[in-house]
């Protein structure tokens, strides 16, 4: 899953380039320029990708180490 999430992050960066809508003046819902609507959708997708990262790629060792240390006291 870690590699899938890494792939999705790379995909977000590639999709961000959107040269395909660069000079497209189509309006979505009659008011939103497509270049803006596309990037707004990309922001939502980014939220989804980061949700997957938090669920499947979280460095649990940090939490575990913290709870272990908070029991033993902070190291010098």
């Amino acid at each position: 899953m870690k590699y899938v999430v890494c792939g999705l992050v790379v995909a977000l960066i590639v999709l961000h380039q959107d040269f395909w809508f660069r000079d497209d003046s189509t309006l979505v819902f009659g008011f939103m320029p497509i270049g803006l609507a596309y990037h707004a959708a990309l922001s939502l997708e980014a939220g989804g990708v980061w949700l997957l990262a938090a669920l499947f790629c979280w460095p649990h060792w940090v939490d575990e180490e913290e709870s272990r240390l908070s029991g033993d006291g902070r190291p010098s």
Partner: protein
Amino acid sequence: MTGSLIPVYIICGYLALLLGLGLLSSRLFRGTSEDYMVASHSIGPFLLLMSIFGTTMTAFALVGSSGEAFKEGIGVYGMLASSSGIVHSLVFFVVGVRLWHFGKRYGYMTQIEFFRDRLENQTIGLLLFPVLVSLVVPYLLIGVISSGTVINGITQGAFEPYHLFAGAKFGVPPWLGSLVICCVVLMYVFFGGMRGTAWANTFQTIVFMVLGVVTFFMISQKLGGLQSATQAVVSRHPDHITRAGISQLTFFTYLLVPLSVGMFPHLFQHWLTARSASSFKLPIVAHPIFILIVWVPCVLVGIWATSAMIDGHLVVPPKANPNAVLAIMVKRLAGPVLSGFLTAGILAAIMSSLDSQFLCLGTMFTNDIVLHYAGADRFSERQKVAFARLFIVAIVALTYGFSLMPTRRVFTLGIWCFSGFSSLFPLVVAAIYWKRLTAAGAMASVVTVIVVWGTLFRQSAYGGNPHYTFLGMMPVVTIFASSAVALVLISLITRPPSEATIRKFFQAGASV
């Protein structure tokens, strides 16, 4: 045109409320420097999300984005907002969580404490301190300048019956507006420290997000609805609904600018307030969505401002100061009551960044200079807090003084400031993930940033040319690449760090 004093009353009421919140939070102050500077690592996911987001979204997000969309069109969203949604969360994930871990474990309160320890070198602090302070001050200036401009824009005409402030079009003069904002922020940071800042940021983030959306719909309604407002732009300024005016290379290289959050000292301090590593999950996931909620309305209002007409006249003059576009739209298209509330929302966004920046400079001065060189054991906790407070007062006074000088476009000033922080990003990543990083490599990287950033900033007429690029790319690319190359090359030819340091920072799951 005669204005109303109602917005002035509402703004004053809001500022009083904020002061009350700061004073209330100060009652929870535990009296230690750790509590004053990092709220004793007690902040949970929701407060962390709101305080990080409020800190990251500055005047740049509201005033700068609408002003830039007014000048350049919708491309501003892709350049900085959607890219930030991807890059900011990435940085929180790969840098923020690790730095929080080191900070909690070894008791760091500033970046410089971390770098001194990680690089086994004290000089790096002397080099980094002036660089970080010099980059935070222009960032502060963005907020201070914008607050004065916005308050003046909204209150113009309000004092005409009293023949006051004629030189500022009978509105609150920018110098006075900025001064009041500085004093209010200073008060609640002074008394509330990081806990007060986190509370105030949360409250202010809710205020500016809610009022931002309300503003958007109010303005669109006055312009005949969403479709009508955009159709006017299609007719008069069709170039503003595409990003054809921005070269693909410039657009691509803008991706490096949001990396700046990895080296913001005030954000580092906010990360350290987290109660646990898991507290980062909510900010990481929600940050891009919050960006969408704040930026899309601002960008649309910015492009609408190019073509919006009332009674046959343009709402915003074509040569208007971009920093004032949002204020003009709000004032002309909303009633005085709503204008007052909406201005409070804009000021909330500005102040929620100023507070963290002031506090972090006070913390850096106390920990990295006074306590480091005079010896932490020489001072009581009360004295440490007093040092931080004194430096905060000094930095507020200095920033306010700078804000009275001739101003640049908020957006341009911000981009130069972010470019400097972004170019220091290789340093923080290498410190966390690359065992071979040496103190000499780190210092070479910082010196390279100083030289290259300074040279390009000078070539851009000190930010006076908002369209300045180097080899067709954003200057950040050159500065970032030079910094990374210097860091790697010098690290490879100098003596590696000791085994003890490697063990300290690369045990458990942290190594690569």
